[in-house]
């Protein structure tokens, strides 16, 4: 045993301790934490919230979606059922997860005034923006801060004195549905991410990062780290062989079955369809995705991992399908229903952010396209799609994407004063394709 051997647990603990030290005892008004996919961001948020509450500091938590808020409330209650937690929600119908009704110490209200005095109050950024306070909260935690837009931080930043900002810089940047070029280069560009603005105005804030991904398997972490986090590498918490995926029913020799076996073996699989320009909802590709999912379920998959040494069955809720566009997701859902598959999550990259599955099936964002737009080249989109899985990721794609990439280098205008984002989407796409090419299976044998 030498000192050079990497102990993921120890490295992660060390990072977490430093973050909590800065958060609880530091002097800076803000602490920024970069977290790669599955590095225990939620665990960190829950732990920081509990410690701040223990220290008697009233805490507000800002998350981006209602699902994230409900998830945090459930995790907090799981760790400390005694903790009085407030869930501030909207006045729409069904504003929160019904599971919260079973938690005795969680108070729910659409009015911030009703939640006064509770140790922790949690809500979405959109809801917090409507809250008025006489005295700001001593502390805040801003979750998914890289997915939060600068203007929504502007709306809530007056509510707290200091804050812990946690997020994943590699995922999708926030977007706006109208042009915002006129503010490009301004430190407070309202369409930029909250962290970009925060650091532009407060460059001295301590910045940390979590060094270990517990979600991504050893087969995926180096690729995702190298392609999407070239200057802030991370490791997987598990090693090769710690996780296995096996199937009771042998392959029938078809493309879908062979790609499943390839992915089970190596962590990656590329099911390649013949080159063709198609509409966005490419019927053949959609059918291929649905068939792969159907076969994953039919073949009696079993997953072993550090969590469960006994093989856990690969059920529908452990599989997800990811697409770039909503209409693609809808088409895949329809195709799955035709094959009698229900309960498999099918969603766009935006909505899959922060989620985790055993196996993911991805319709490549550039599959069948005649052109490569900035939307489809965005690194975050591919990063989200390629980093949701614990065991294996199967990509369905038309041939010819790497030629397409060469035909369409990124041509976005360079704006003065903006930080050039690395890696660029073109390069990241090539890196992922090159790796996938090693695990290519043709649609027909």
């Amino acid at each position, binding site marked *: 045993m030498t000192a050079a051997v990497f102990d993921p647990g120890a490295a992660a603990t060390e990072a977490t301790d430093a973050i909590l030290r800065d958060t609880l005892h530091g002097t800076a008004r803000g602490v920024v934490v970069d977290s790669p996919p599955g590095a225990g961001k939620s665990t960190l948020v829950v732990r920081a919230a509990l410690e701040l509450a223990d220290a008697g500091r009233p805490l507000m938590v800002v998350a981006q979606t209602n699902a994230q808020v409900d998830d945090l409330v459930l995790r907090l209650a799981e760790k400390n059922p005694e903790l009085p937690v407030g869930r501030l929600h909207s006045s729409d119908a069904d504003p929160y997860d019904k599971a919260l009704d079973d938690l005795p110490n969680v108070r729910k209200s659409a009015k911030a005034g009703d939640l006064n005095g509770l140790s922790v109050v949690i809500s979405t950024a959109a809801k917090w923006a409507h809250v008025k306070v006489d005295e700001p909260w001593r502390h805040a935690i801003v979750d998914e801060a890289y997915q939060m837009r600068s203007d929504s931080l502007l709306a809530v930043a007056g509510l707290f004195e200091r804050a812990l900002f946690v997020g994943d810089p590699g995922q999708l940047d926030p977007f706006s549905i109208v042009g915002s070029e006129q503010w490009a280069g301004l430190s407070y560009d309202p369409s930029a991410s909250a962290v970009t603005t925060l650091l532009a105005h407060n460059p001295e804030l301590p910045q940390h990062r979590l060094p270990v991904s517990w979600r991504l398997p050893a087969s995926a972490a180096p690729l995702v780290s190298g392609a999407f986090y070239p200057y802030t590498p991370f490791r997987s918490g598990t090693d090769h062989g710690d996780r296995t995926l096996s199937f009771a029913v042998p392959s029938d020799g078809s493309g879908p079955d062979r790609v499943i076996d390839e992915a089970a073996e190596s962590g990656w699989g590329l099911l390649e369809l013949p080159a063709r320009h198609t509409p966005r909802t490419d019927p053949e590709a959609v059918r291929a995705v649905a068939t792969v999912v159907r076969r994953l379920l039919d073949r009696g998959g079993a997953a072993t991992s550090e969590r469960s040494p006994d093989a856990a069955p690969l059920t529908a809720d452990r599989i997800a399908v990811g697409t770039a566009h909503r*209409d693609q997701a809808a088409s895949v859902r329809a195709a799955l229903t035709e094959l009698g598959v229900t309960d498999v999550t099918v969603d766009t990259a935006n909505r899959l952010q922060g989620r985790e599955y055993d196996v993911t099936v991805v319709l490549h964002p550039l599959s069948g396209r005649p052109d490569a737009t900035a939307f489809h080249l965005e690194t975050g989109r591919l990063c989200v799609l390629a980093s949701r899985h614990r065991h294996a990721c199967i990509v369905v794609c038309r041939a010819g994407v790497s030629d397409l990439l060469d035909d369409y280098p990124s041509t976005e205008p360079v704006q003065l004063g903006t930080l050039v984002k690395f890696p660029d989407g073109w390069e990241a796409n090539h890196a992922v394709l090159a790796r996938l090419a090693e695990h290519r299976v043709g649609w027909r044998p």
Partner: protein
Amino acid sequence: MSLISTLARLEAVSTGRAQPAATVRHRRLSERPLVFVPLTTAGEAGAPLGALVGTDRDAPHLLVVPQPRDRDLRFAFLAELADVVLPYIDAYAEDVEAAERNETDPETGQRVKVEVELCADAPQLIVPSRAGVDFVRLLGRSMRFRRTAEQDPEAPYPAPPRVPLLGRWLTHFAERARVPGSSLLLAMTDVLARHWATGQSTLEDQHLGALLAWIDLPDGETGAEAALRAELARDRDGQLLCPPAGPATDPAFDNKLLAPAIERYDRARTALAAAEDGLEADDRLGDLTAAEREIRALVASRTRPTWDAVWRGLDRLRELPEAARVEERWTRDRWSFTGHRDRVVAGEPPQPRHDDAVTAANKLAAREREQARLEAQEALDDPLVMAGRRLSGEAFAGEVTDVVMAYSEGKRPSPRPLVTVRTDDRPHLGERAKVFRSLGGKPQSAEFVGYEGDAEDDSALIVLRVLDKMGRGKEPEEGSVPEKGDVLCFTLFEHEQRGGAKLPDPEQTPWTHGGPPGEPESEAADPLTEEDVL
């Protein structure tokens, strides 16, 4: 590009002419728009070469800068432009009606209604293309910080009196043009491309001549042929038959015609300055005037075809009836116009170079709201636009086949009727998705319950639960619940936009965004640089 616009473009290719992309006109066209066709000097950002401007299609004002690098001539051009544009704007500023606006009472902090003036109509500027909008913005920026001799006797190059004011107005028009659905400043190419689909790319659609070639087709030709001719055809001297809509000019024109003419003008001017007696000066003044007239003729020859094209485009657009909700959006333009009029009258400083953090965030939020509003309103106003949304699964239309009365649970049961709609559309309905239909101009919402049985052929039976707009009683008000046989259209998108949260005042800008911006300092015009040779 949506599926329906791809289809329309394919049809345009196969039929050889533009296909309608709308059945009504989605932008306001003023009865008396001010058309502005500017040209700029190659290689000199913000140095106008000339323009045609005016409200009378048969009698445009021709403004020319015979030597674009001469600051005095440039100012003379801008002063002339101000003499045309500002009286046009002022005519609208004076005609007002009474209106109410919600304001925060500074003492109580309560929202109160205040009686204010609202201009009864607003001016409208029309430029040929998107580049023209950018040029209006650039002109506005170059003028609004200028100081007149009256404001600042020390200013090195004092601007003519009304030029800074024109700069503020052009800035306002150009900024308003960034708001989706606004009509204060329109680019003709954008408006035409909104209403017709051509058989060429969206990039090619930005060439006004080529775009009109598809839409306003000469007899016996296809759109593709006519567009190609508009783009490339040249006369014997190598000049384009259809000059670009500007503000940039064709290099062949610059090199072969304009540069020699300007050189002759420069020579004549130098000669005049060197004249030794009155008789000689008279002669040379004649040469100078001739040289200037030549440049004026050149500028007129390159702007007039574009001028006529803009009016032809207006003719075509006026053939379409105005969409129902355009009036509402135009009222917002009138508010915007009135607001700027009031700021000018109140003696406020010109718009700053950069927005502060709060202003930028407010503008972005407002534009996003307007974009969503525009998309919803265009679909509700226009069955062809709605067809596109139906095709993309964001709406569905069909006949009501069954209505079953049901009630909500609770102490006071309210009506929650179940409505079954048969549709051939394929909407992307998620579990308990909300859908909306227009009921007397207001959105009525319903909830997706599920699909019923197997409908024959390709249609689906969609069961919805109607949620609101049925009155307060136990029984729904008459006409508020769909009836069997009604043909309805439901959308998955909302019809109206909620206002966003109020942002802090700029003085309350938080530490994350750099804190309060501090006192606004009066901004100076751009300083002189070595490149400013004249």
